[in-house]
């Protein structure tokens, strides 16, 4: 099947800071005292994480994905452009995926400029996915969360205008005014790098991405509603006259490959649990600043009573809600084939370093996946097709 012949494997790194202060149960966001940051440890981690991303490039991953969060141990990337710039210099062939700066938190022309810089520096290897930014980001950036969505849409219009209309142009919006919108440099790729919107299931985000002809991706949305919104996104896009294909949607999965399933569980599982228990965890207060969540989403959240951010995470819960696989190359390949078929997506983000995973496991995971899993798709092994069907 053509879909499985053309899979693109994107290695995503969260770059977490894993030396957590003891006994902090409320999560590592917003008000975690930054005195806990040790720059020597930070330096060690940046080197380790960049090594892993560079290895990903050498091993043949199609993309290297970085993202952005503020004031949190979840991520050492309050600016993903800085890491993107490093990757442009350190890597040779993988896409550099800026997935990405919450554009409403900054000035949109800066995103246009910085991403264009990385695109030109890397000879046209940038891809872009833009999130609204979690509620937590709005507590630590001077931007009113009750206008987040409106501001996001305006900022996206400016990014596209900056990249598609020869400058200088003018922009008169509610939040941003540009007398001369004239970013320099402009992107290497013409008209511009591919753009996705990162959503979490909001109806209005799907509608926005579909209307504008962007791609669409989701993070940490349970599988069933996620697949439903992908379908909805495809229908909405068609309604607006935008054709979708297998690259229009990006899915993501947590993956650990080892010699045996048992070994994969032994080596990988604790780090995934660390991620969900300690890094993703936050409070309802920080998760939902006023106006950031559409009221219908909050309603669903209150009615369902459980969310990944504030409940006790169990391994079983994770496996029912998200794409998680730990196993042999064969087991991992089968799952990936199934997930991609299910979502009709040929782009899959793989969380190959998760939580407090040590360097050697990340290297092992990246290597085994590249050497033992990817080739099964590159040659579109018939066994896999059967598995998917």
């Amino acid at each position, binding site marked *: 099947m053509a879909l499985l012949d053309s899979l693109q494997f994107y290695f995503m790194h969260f770059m977490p800071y894993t030396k957590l202060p003891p006994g902090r149960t409320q999560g590592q966001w917003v008000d975690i005292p930054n005195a806990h940051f040790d720059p020597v440890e930070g330096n060690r981690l940046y080197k380790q994480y960049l090594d892993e991303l560079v290895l990903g490039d050498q091993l043949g991953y199609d993309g290297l994905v970085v993202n952005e969060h503020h004031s949190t141990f979840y991520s050492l990337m309050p600016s993903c452009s800085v890491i993107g710039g490093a990757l442009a210099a350190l890597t040779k062939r993988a896409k550099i995926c800026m997935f990405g700066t919450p554009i409403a938190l900054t000035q949109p022309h800066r995103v246009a400029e910085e991403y264009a810089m990385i695109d030109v520096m890397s000879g046209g290897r940038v891809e872009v996915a833009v999130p609204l930014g979690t509620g937590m980001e709005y*507590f630590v950036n*001077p931007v*009113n*969360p*009750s*206008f987040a969505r409106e501001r996001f849409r305006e900022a996206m219009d400016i990014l596209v205008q900056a990249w598609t209309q020869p400058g200088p142009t003018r922009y008169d919006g509610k939040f941003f005014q540009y007398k001369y919108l004239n970013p320099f440099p402009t992107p290497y790729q013409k008209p511009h790098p591919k753009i996705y919107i990162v959503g979490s299931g909001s109806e209005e985000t799907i509608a926005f991405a579909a209307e504008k002809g962007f791609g669409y991706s989701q993070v940490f949305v349970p599988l069933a509603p996620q697949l439903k919104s992908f379908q909805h996104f495809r229908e909405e896009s068609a309604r607006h006259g935008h054709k979708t294909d297998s690259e229009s949607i990006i899915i993501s999965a947590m993956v650990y490959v080892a010699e045996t399933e048992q070994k994969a569980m032994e080596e990988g599982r604790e780090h995934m649990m660390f991620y969900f228990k300690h890094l993703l965890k936050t*409070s*309802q*207060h920080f998760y*939902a*600043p*006023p*106006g950031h*969540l559409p*009221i219908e989403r*909050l*309603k669903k959240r*209150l*009615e369902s009573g459980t969310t990944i951010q504030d409940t006790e995470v169990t391994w079983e819960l994770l496996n029912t809600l998200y794409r998680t696989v730990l196993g042999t190359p064969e087991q991992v390949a089968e799952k990936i084939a199934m997930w991609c078929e299910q979502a009709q997506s040929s782009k899959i983000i793989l969380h190959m370093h998760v939580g407090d995973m040590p360097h050697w496991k990340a290297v092992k995971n990246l290597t085994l996946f590249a050497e033992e899993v990817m080739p099964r798709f590159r040659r579109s092994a018939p066994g896999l097709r059967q598995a998917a069907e």
Partner: protein
Amino acid sequence: MMASVIDKTGFTSEEMVIRGVRVHMLTAGRGSPVVYFHGAGSIGGFDHLLPLAERHTLYVPAHPGFGASDDDRHIDSILDYVVHYADLFDRLGLNEKVDLVGHSLGGWMAAMFAVLQGHRLRKLALVSPAGLRVPEHPTLDLFTIPADQLPPYLVADVKTLGRLLPGGMTNEIKLARYRETTSLARVAWDRLYDPKLERWLDRVTVPTLLLWGEQDRCIPAQQAHSWAKRIAKAEVATFPNAGHLLFAESADAVQRLNAFLS
């Protein structure tokens, strides 16, 4: 068009449409007009204001974005609310000799209304008002307080909230609170004051009463003096054992206001 219903508390419930937005208003009593601008939470109701209706027509409109009024997506500043209320006063024919009372966020709106529309007013009462920047006694940034930790900031005695919300924090109330907090954030996420207001307050020339709960942990009672210093005809009344939701905790404060308005 106006529809009216009398509810069991003695308020009459009315609806009207202003600039395309449906707004809801409670009225009670008969006499010279008193308009009450409520604070950022309307969920506890307004029964404690009914003594004001003994000698006045009391109007308690719900701000757009609050209570039973619809949202107005154009409103994102205190000035927008002042213009909204200039419209509403026109609609009600309230062109002179109106007594205006504002609590907390509503106090800020009332102060700005007095700055810009003072000619319509007879007297002004500000009840633990937001709006003024007093660096020595700063207003609490409510947005930094998780909902479950909020009660002791709002009232001197947390049992007061139990009386206001006998059913507790149901999901319905949580959603209503989220909506009202969002409406508040639209005008005051950055700060619950306008640094320029102190420059403008000398335009308030009507007799003004400042009422404050001495246990107010949202907006400290010491701010009363900063207001009184800038308003020519101001007096200050403070009440012990009462917090930010002053009228819910102090019947004396309601009586003091009633005396001021009579």
